[in-house]
């Protein structure tokens, strides 16, 4: 009896262990399903950034008040957002990457974690030391440190459970991305496209931190986990296998070894298809003359099997980049009508200014249209070849080294950068924080030295000419037709992640430091509040003790905060009248505060 019981017990144990490894992370799944939590950086696996909460709604949002605030103690750019699971909020900071667990009951600290990192990593992160937040799953909090260490902390105690090195800062490899938990894996990428880093996505075992697979963006098929016969890409109006050596044959010699294609954006996951989606960044260097060829698979959208890392399909948006249009922006998964038919879509707003709608199952290209009318570097995307039609005047390859190509739209920071968009499930519209900035771009020859900048272009940026004079728009996009539904001009780039809710309210932050609530149907402003420092963080929402809260980090920095300055000081641009960095300095200064808002109690 006893023995039989023991055997039965062991069988149960074995079965439950099996199911543990084969199924989704139960804790995260459960947490995500309850809208009271904000258990992942986008609130879900699909990057929709939508909440079912509706206590705060279009008719009462004007009464929103700051309820509590908290200093992170760091005065640098604050991207990403906290997580909320049950009665605990997990807060992160830019370098040195502190993590704090806060009791929602009384805002006391449960635990604090501050890693010891070599300060030598800061210079290779030049010019800001952002971190886009932590991930939750399997009773742990995952932090991707700047020095590339991925660490798992016990969510209850903050004690280190495991830690693994994901790269080498001496080669210019750093991390700014949030790790993502999908099923039994922690997924992370790498930064350093301006240091000749070879990009890859890596999956670690959630229990042990052991590497499960690593898929490079460039190089031999085996290292990209590409099967030449099975990995598909859009070819002549249909999907076809990529064929042998699809990457290496698009590079001169072994340039792919320092070829870039880094992976520092937001990843998404479709549990039904078991596919992970993300984008790869710019090829290194920024001087196109130095790297002939399409430079595959930089600037591409990827679909990988979560368990094996094998590539189901891949699509290159900007072959042979000449403008630093990183393809890393988030892939939003939503089932939407496209040309009268509901499709399992992937929607992506690329740095290059085109909004792409793909079939996320097959990889077929459905829609590719400009989501900012200022975009001028290409006339359109040829829907048969999938390639952009580049305008010679704005081709830095065509104009050549040491020639300043002027008036290219968008600027290198793209019509949109990493700041994530949101999908409003009710109106089926995508609300997108955008940049309305153009540039002059002068490429020049550079030599590669490990760990040293490998940029190769001088840029200056300015507000899109002949427009409203501002440097941003907050827009609504119909991804089925590829059309802008409405566009709300902003004085500065909108560098904050947006949120939509079932209360018919959309939220986003601005560089001068407003948190704004707008109507998702027409963009009409419903409420705004001035926080001390510009917002580059993502708006999030949660419910605690029956009350809905909306929060955001205040803390300017990142490329928007400092990169803007570079071009806008140039007197010949005549920007004094229309704005620019000097204007930004009239509104805001550095900061590092979390703001939490709610409706008044009665």
């Amino acid at each position, binding site marked *: 009896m006893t023995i039989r019981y023991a055997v039965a017990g062991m069988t149960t144990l074995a079965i439950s262990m099996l199911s543990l490894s084969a199924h989704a992370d139960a804790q995260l799944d459960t947490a995500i399903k309850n809208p009271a939590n904000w258990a992942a950086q986008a609130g879900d696996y699909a990057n929709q950034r939508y909440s079912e909460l509706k206590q705060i709604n279009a008719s009462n949002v004007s009464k929103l008040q700051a309820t509590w605030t908290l200093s992170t103690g760091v005065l640098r750019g604050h991207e990403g957002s906290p997580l909320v699971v049950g009665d605990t909020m997990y807060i992160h900071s830019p370098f040195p990457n502190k993590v704090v667990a806060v009791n929602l009951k009384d805002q006391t600290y449960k635990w604090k974690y501050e890693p010891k990192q070599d*300060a030598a990593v*800061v*210079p290779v992160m*030049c010019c*800001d030391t952002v971190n886009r937040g932590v991930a939750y799953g399997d009773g742990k909090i995952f932090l991707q440190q700047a020095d590339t260490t991925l660490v798992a902390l016990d969510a209850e105690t903050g004690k280190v459970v495991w830690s693994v090195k994901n790269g080498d800062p001496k080669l210019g490899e750093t991390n700014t991305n949030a790790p993502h938990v999908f099923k039994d894996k922690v997924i992370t990428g790498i930064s350093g496209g301006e240091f000749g880093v070879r990009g890859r996505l890596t999956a670690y075992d959630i229990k042990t931190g052991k590497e499960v697979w690593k898929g490079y963006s460039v190089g031999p098929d085996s290292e990209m986990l590409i099967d030449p016969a099975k990995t598909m890409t859009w070819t002549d109006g249909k999907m076809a296998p990529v064929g042998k050596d699809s990457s290496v044959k698009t590079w001169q010699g072994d340039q792919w070894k320092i070829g870039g294609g880094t992976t520092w954006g937001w990843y998404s996951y479709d549990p039904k298809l078991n596919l992970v989606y993300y984008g790869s960044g710019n090829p290194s260097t920024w001087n196109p003359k130095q790297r002939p060829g399409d430079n595959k698979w930089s600037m591409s959208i990827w679909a990988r099997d979560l368990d094996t890392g094998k590539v189901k399909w891949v699509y290159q948006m900007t072959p042979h980049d000449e403008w630093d249009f990183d393809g890393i922006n988030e892939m939003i998964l939503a089932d939407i009508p496209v040309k009268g038919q509901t499709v399992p879509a992937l929607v992506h707003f690329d740095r290059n200014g085109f909004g792409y709608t793909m079939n996320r199952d097959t990889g077929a290209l459905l829609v590719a249209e400009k989501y900012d009318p200022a975009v001028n570097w290409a006339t359109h995307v040829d829907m048969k070849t999938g390639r952009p039609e580049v305008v010679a005047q704005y081709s830095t390859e065509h104009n050549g080294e040491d020639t300043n190509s002027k008036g290219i739209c968008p600027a290198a920071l793209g019509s949109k950068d990493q700041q994530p968009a949101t999908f409003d499930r009710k109106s089926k519209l995508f609300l997108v924080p955008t940049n309305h900035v153009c540039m002059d771009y002068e490429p020049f020859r550079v*030599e590669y*030295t490990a760990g040293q900048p490998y940029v190769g272009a001088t840029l200056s940026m300015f507000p899109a000419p002949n427009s409203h004079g501002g440097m941003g728009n907050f827009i609504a996009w119909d991804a089925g037709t590829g059309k802008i539904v409405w566009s709300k001009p902003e004085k500065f780039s909108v560098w904050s992640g947006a949120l939509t809710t079932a209360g018919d309210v959309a939220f986003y932050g601005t560089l001068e430091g407003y948190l704004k609530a707008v109507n998702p149907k027409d963009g009409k402003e419903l409420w705004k509040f001035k926080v001390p420092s510009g917002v580059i963080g993502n708006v999030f929402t949660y419910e605690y003790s029956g009350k809905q809260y909306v929060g955001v980090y205040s803390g300017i920095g990142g490329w928007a905060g*400092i990169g803007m300055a570079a071009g806008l*000081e140039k007197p010949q641009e005549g920007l004094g009248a229309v704005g620019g960095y000097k204007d930004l300095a009239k509104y805001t200064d550095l900061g590092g505060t979390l703001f939490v808002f709610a409706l008044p109690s009665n």
Partner: protein
Amino acid sequence: MKPLYKLLLAATVLAFSTTASVSAQDANADAPYKVVDGNKVDPGTLKGWKTWRSLACERCHGAQQEGLVGPSLVDSLKRLTKTDFQTTVMNGRIEKGMPNFGGSQQMQDNWQNLYAYLKGRSDGKIQPGHLQPMDGQQ
């Protein structure tokens, strides 16, 4: 004593800076750079500008050396000695975010040229932006 000393020092500095600006305008004998029309420079200074460009110094110090995350080099080059400058670029100021460029062959070969270029920017003699060789040949 003290006020007199200060006055004397100020007078000396004034005299020196007047002399310096005159000489820079004329033959520029003491300056580590030579410049004509604000944007045509000697071969060494041209290499210095190219070093500035290829090591992407503007990402922290600004396209016109006016300062962004890093300090304004227009100001710094008025204070730093040539030795200070060498130490800073070679060893960095890691805690402040300044990288060490000692590992860069280009920097090892060109730090004096870079110093010359930045000195010219700091003195207001060299214009921001693209530079040309003095002899007009590219």
